[in-house]
């Protein structure tokens, strides 16, 4: 039980932020209206994805020096879970865009680059499946992952800011910085991010444990 305290913390945080995110007061802003509450649900998906990809790149570097299969498996499984969160982030963003921008996909820089960064990690999985020899696969995919990670960071945080994007927080659009002043939103947004990161990490540990049992039986 004492070892599982963080799982309970994650569950409690996610439940709290869902209730508080729907019921607590939010700033009244034009165009966004009630969809400002998506900050509590859509944005934590991306944070969880980035944390999972960071875990993956950590184990990729580790596996290059340790040459251990366990580190390689940790890197793959955290990418598997990170991709799920990334796809959820893309889909929730598209639904939101339909009602605020008018189209599910308007080829906004933020949308395009987010899609490309997910594709980068799909390519990682394809690359892995293309190599049969285990040690070669571990080494090549670890090196690919080390290059993909900074690319993902640039695609999500640098390139959309160099172009005019409609996404909140870009250019003159109201975004996280202007809500940041609102302490009501901060009290929900930060716990939501932490909660979903913990849930994502938890699913990753479950996937990794299944993978290592499968690995043992082979």
């Amino acid at each position: 039980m004492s070892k599982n305290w963080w799982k309970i913390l994650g569950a409690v945080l996610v439940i709290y932020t869902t209730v508080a995110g729907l019921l607590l007061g939010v700033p009244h802003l034009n165009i966004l209206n009630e969809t400002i509450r998506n900050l509590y649900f859509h944005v934590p998906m991306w944070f969880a994805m980035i944390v999972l990809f960071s875990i993956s790149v950590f184990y990729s570097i580790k596996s290059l020096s340790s040459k251990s299969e366990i580190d390689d498996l940790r890197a793959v499984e955290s990418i598997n879970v990170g991709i799920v969160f990334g796809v959820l982030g893309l889909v929730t963003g598209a639904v939101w865009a339909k009602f605020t921008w008018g189209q599910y996909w308007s080829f906004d820089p933020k949308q395009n680059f987010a899609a490309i960064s997910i594709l980068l990690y799909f390519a990682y999985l394809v690359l892995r499946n293309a190599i049969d020899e285990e040690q070669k696969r571990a080494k090549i995919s670890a090196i690919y992952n080390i290059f993909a990670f900074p690319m993902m960071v640039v695609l999500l945080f640098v390139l959309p800011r160099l172009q005019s994007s409609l996404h909140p927080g870009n250019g003159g659009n109201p975004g996280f910085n202007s809500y940041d002043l609102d302490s009501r939103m901060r009290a929900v947004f930060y716990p939501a991010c932490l909660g979903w990161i913990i849930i994502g990490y938890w699913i990753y540990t479950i996937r990794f444990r299944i993978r290592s049992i499968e690995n043992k039986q082979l």
Partner: protein
Amino acid sequence: MKKIAFTLLMLLTTLNIFAQENNVEMADAMRSDGKIYVVVAVILIILFGLLFYLFALDRRLKMLEKKSSAKN
């Protein structure tokens, strides 16, 4: 007198415009009708169900791990 009345009229119309600027449409009606709690309840049921399922999976996996380590 006419001028003062006109000025007052103009002031009143501009006040109206100021009031409209703050009138961002929010789901206040849904909140006051209490229907938002139905949505919260539905989402909570889904979330509780999924989290409970995750805990159950974790427990099942732990048993499997015990069995697997006993065999090896």
